[in-house]
């Protein structure tokens, strides 16, 4: 078995043909195999280059992104690592040991198998450019199984069997014959597996993190589509999050589908706007709401039309409140400039409409003949009286640029007449 591995390795680099542990070092562009006796010699310039086999799996895994930068060496590297993995995997070692038939690795195999799988997976991901690198041990369970199965059997025959044919996993980190053909095969499998949606998310993250983008033309397209999917998904998630927040704000909203939430939001928003409008009017009018105060109609009444208040547009669409958007024609103060003061927060957007109001107020002056209409009915009907009494609906039309005006003209309740 050692011979198998080594023969493949021999294709590219010199290897000390013995049973000792061998370190395959990548030294200035070429791979040099050194016996384990020189455990971890430090090539001065390549200390940060992955090459020392004596390190743990985590360290080697950390090196992989670096290795990819060197495109020239990649194939060589692939073979190198696969051979080492092939040797190490069945033994469940965290370190990459050279081919050895010793079943008991120096390191405890307990925790290392997961690491092993993970970095074997890492290797595969980086080399394959696969979208499918399940970093989690769960994802590598298949691989683990394959590896595990190989463990007890020792290092023997890890060439084909430990390539996890049974598990179906494409992380043939286990015992791939370090043959270039097999490397390509694994890449193929990676590509195929990249279509499986279950691992897309993880694969995306893996790909984006490790950037193994260079090699696989067809994969780039798939990956672009996957990236798009991912961004689409994120966008949807953001929207859903906002919808949930909206749902929280709306009282008594127990629906969870988009359209219902939007529906209720619309309704609630309109009602809120109307409520605010009413309260503004009321707070302006309140001091005047007693008999004899009709001459001091709050100037803010002029400001209350659908143009001045952003909310009023919504109001004007609500046929059930036809009167709200009209000013009170009966009690128009002579000066309308202070009229807007209470409404300033709401009027900021509609200066032009204010001009219209001032114009219109003059028309109302001669409507003054009527006595004060102390509102008998709370809420929106307060202004119904005045509207009904307006003898110049044209001016009202001019002022209140809303669809409600025709309604009020046409549908004046007869009860209000002559009040």
């Amino acid at each position, binding site marked *: 078995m050692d011979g198998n591995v080594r023969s493949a390795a021999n294709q590219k680099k010199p290897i000390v043909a013995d049973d000792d542990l061998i370190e395959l070092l990548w030294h200035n562009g070429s791979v040099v195999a050194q016996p384990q006796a020189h455990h971890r010699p430090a090539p001065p310039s390549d200390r940060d280059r992955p090459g020392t086999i004596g390190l743990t799996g985590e360290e080697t895994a950390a090196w992989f992104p670096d290795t990819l930068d060197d495109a020239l060496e990649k194939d060589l590297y692939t073979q190198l690592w696969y051979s080492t993995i092939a040797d190490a995997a069945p033994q469940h070692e965290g370190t990459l040991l050279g081919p050895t038939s010793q079943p008991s690795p120096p390191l405890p195999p307990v925790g290392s198998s997961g690491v092993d799988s993970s970095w074997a997976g890492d290797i595969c991901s980086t080399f394959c450019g696969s979208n499918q690198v399940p970093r989690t041990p769960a994802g590598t369970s298949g691989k683990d199984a394959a590896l595990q199965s190989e463990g007890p059997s020792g290092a023997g025959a890890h060439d084909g069997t430990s390539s996890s044919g049974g598990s179906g996993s494409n992380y043939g980190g286990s015992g791939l014959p370090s043959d270039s053909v097999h490397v390509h095969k694994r890449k193929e499998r990676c590509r195929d597996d990249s279509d499986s949606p279950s691992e897309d998310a993880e694969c995306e993250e893996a790909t984006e993190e490790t950037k193994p983008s260079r090699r696989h033309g067809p994969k780039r397209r798939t990956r672009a589509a996957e990236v798009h999917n991912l961004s689409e998904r994120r*966008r949807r998630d*953001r*929207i859903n999050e*906002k*919808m949930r*927040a*909206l749902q929280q*704000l*709306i009282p008594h909203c127990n629906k969870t*589908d*988009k*359209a219902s939430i*939007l*529906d209720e*939001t*619309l*309704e*609630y*928003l*309109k009602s*809120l*706007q109307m*409520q*605010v409008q*009413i*309260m*503004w009017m*009321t*707070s302006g*009018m*309140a*001091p*005047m*709401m*007693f008999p004899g105060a009709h001459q001091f109609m709050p100037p803010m009444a002029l400001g209350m039309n659908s143009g001045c208040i*952003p*909310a009023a*547009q*919504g109001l004007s669409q609500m046929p059930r409140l036809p009167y709200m958007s009209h000013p009170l024609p009966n009690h128009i103060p002579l000066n309308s400039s202070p009229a807007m003061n209470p409404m300033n*927060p709401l009027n900021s*957007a*509609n200066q032009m409409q204010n001009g219209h109001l001032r114009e219109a107020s003059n028309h109302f002056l001669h409507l003054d003949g009527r006595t004060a209409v*102390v*509102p*008998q009915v*709370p*809420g929106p009907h*307060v202004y119904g009286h005045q509207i009904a009494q307006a003898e110049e609906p044209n001016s009202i039309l001019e002022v209140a640029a809303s669809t409600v005006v025709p309604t009020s003209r046409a549908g004046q309740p007869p009860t209000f007449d002559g009040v």
Partner: protein
Amino acid sequence: MSSGRSSSRGNISEDEINELISKLQALLPSSRRRGSGQASTTKLLKETCSYIKSLHREVDDLSDRLSDLMSTMDHNSPGAEIIRSILRS
């Protein structure tokens, strides 16, 4: 308000949702200033949330004002009646 939104089959089409969203946009104060071009849904929803919150605050403010006014008024006046009804809603 016509509710011809859900199709009879029960699934909501994208268009209906977009229509709702554009209606929502029409209500928002920010759409008044600029020409209401297409705003992204996320921004719209966020703005709706903040608008509703600000309306809430406004209602609270006005409620306080009204209740203060109430205290100065004759409780039996019709005006007080109106204010009470408003505060109740």
